[in-house]
């Protein structure tokens, strides 16, 4: 018991483990572990042949964290800011540092608005969103949907029922919101 100085249980001996586990103890000495010491000053080890990298063009409109002095010399160009979600995200970047909860919560709000905007935009494109194929739910049929979910004591069974609601929720809410907006506009027009 830990109430005395000795370890309260016995683990197998090194010889026993060496016989059973391939490579047991190969990195027993911390000096053999690649990330020991954690910080090791060796600027020549990386293959970089610059002190400060040449700067990637196009950073003029690029959003950045307030905690950066400038846009980093290299950056991703995956999806530029656009629409209402872009305005929310730009506000989050320009107003709040990473230390503020508002920064991250606004970005998450921007994500939700982006998803709604993009769904709406898809309906005026040649390829509208398809909630069936895009969720991959069609794979259920061929990949053991019953045996994967039952007889395994899965803890996530308690919340799997929520997933369809989260996916379908915005789709179900959209017509309700549309009818409400229409009613409001009619009332305004009538008055």
């Amino acid at each position, binding site marked *: 018991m830990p109430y005395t100085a000795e370890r309260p249980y016995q683990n197998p001996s090194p010889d026993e483990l060496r016989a059973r586990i391939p490579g047991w103890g*190969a990195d027993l000495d911390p000096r053999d572990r690649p990330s020991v010491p954690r910080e090791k000053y060796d600027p020549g080890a990386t293959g970089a*042949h610059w002190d400060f990298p040449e700067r990637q063009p196009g950073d003029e409109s690029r959003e950045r964290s307030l905690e950066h002095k400038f846009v980093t010399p290299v950056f991703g160009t995956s999806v530029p800011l656009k629409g209402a979600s872009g305005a929310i995200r730009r506000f989050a970047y320009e107003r709040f540092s990473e230390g503020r909860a508002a920064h991250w919560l606004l970005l998450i709000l921007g994500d939700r608005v982006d998803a709604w905007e993009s769904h709406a935009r898809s309906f005026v494109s040649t390829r509208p969103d398809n909630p069936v194929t895009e969720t991959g739910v069609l794979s259920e049929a061929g990949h053991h949907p019953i045996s994967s979910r039952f007889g395994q004591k899965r*803890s996530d069974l308690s919340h799997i029922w929520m997933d369809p609601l989260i996916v379908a929720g915005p789709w179900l809410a959209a017509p309700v919101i549309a009818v409400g907006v229409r009613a409001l506009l009619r009332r305004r027009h009538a008055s």
Partner: protein
Amino acid sequence: MQAMVYRGPYKIRVEEKDIPKIEHPNDAIVRVTLGAICGSDLHLYHGMMPDTRVGTTFGHEFIGVVEEVGPSVQNLKKGDRVMVPFNVYCGSCYFCARGLYSNCHNVNPNATAVGGIYGYSHTCGGYDGGQSQFVRVPFADVGPTLIPDWMDDEDAVLLTDACPTGYFGAQLGDISEGDTVVVFGAGPVGLFAAKSSWLMGAGRVIVVDHLEYRLEKARTFAHAETYNFTEYDDIVLQLKKDTGYLGADVAIDAAGAEADGNLFQHITAAKLKLQGGSPIALNWAIDAVRKGGTVSVLGAYGPVFSAVKFGDAMNKGLTIRSNQCPVKRQWPRLFEHIRNGYLKPSEIVTHRIPLEHIAEGYHIFSAKLDGCIKPLILPNAA
């Protein structure tokens, strides 16, 4: 080219996109020959990582062939077969100069709290990822490495994240000979962390999960003792009893933001996105480790605050160590372990999915259908 594209939480599809172009003199364009879906991609897929924009291509585990190089690239040429670490990094900033490649300061304008990662939202720099036919690889002289002739593609792709991250997690545990190590999560990273703990001299390795097929893999692949936490009212108490009421010397959180086991934490994190992830595995790690022990955190969490039991961590005198893995630093030693037969990363691969069926692949992986542990993506299978 064809690429996976995010359309909002739980929704993705394959679209035609422009082939990426050289945007910086040290860029390379790589034709992807094999990719993978990572457990942490599910955080993006479920809408948990801030600033994940519709239209983004995910994928930070990939290998390929160099298609084009920028004018300042010296170490790679067209036709080279390369493995690319999931970290985007410059090799010359304050952090890279000290070996902290995953904390590079020159590649992610969107945040200072995290470095650059391929296909991992604008919070990680806004780079498109490798679940596509081509990908832009910045700092081509620094990140990629030629795949050795003797190495299988499936081993190589697992060396771009899952395997080195698990190995790194065992290092962060600072394991001493004979230590008892408990690993929370029997996904790919947890399996590699458990396996690597033996290399570092652990005396006992215990893996905790709730899926029996993953625990079976932990027993056969990682030689671990296992606990299915759904079989116990209180898994922490069980672990305490099983270690003579002491607790483990080292606890590794290899579950991260998606952890199951507490409905309240799951709803507030995974469903309502009010936390940077469900910290149940991290809290179990803090509770299950002995006083004065070490907690290694490999599980990925978002930057929003999480309800972590820090008071217990302080009162128990714990050392908590964490980071994204500086992948390339691990490669030489991992190459040796693979050549010596101590590790065979591809043993955990369960599914091989053509890129055009990637929406189904994400659903299978996310819903844990069909005994899925590690799905690979074949971008040119058609």
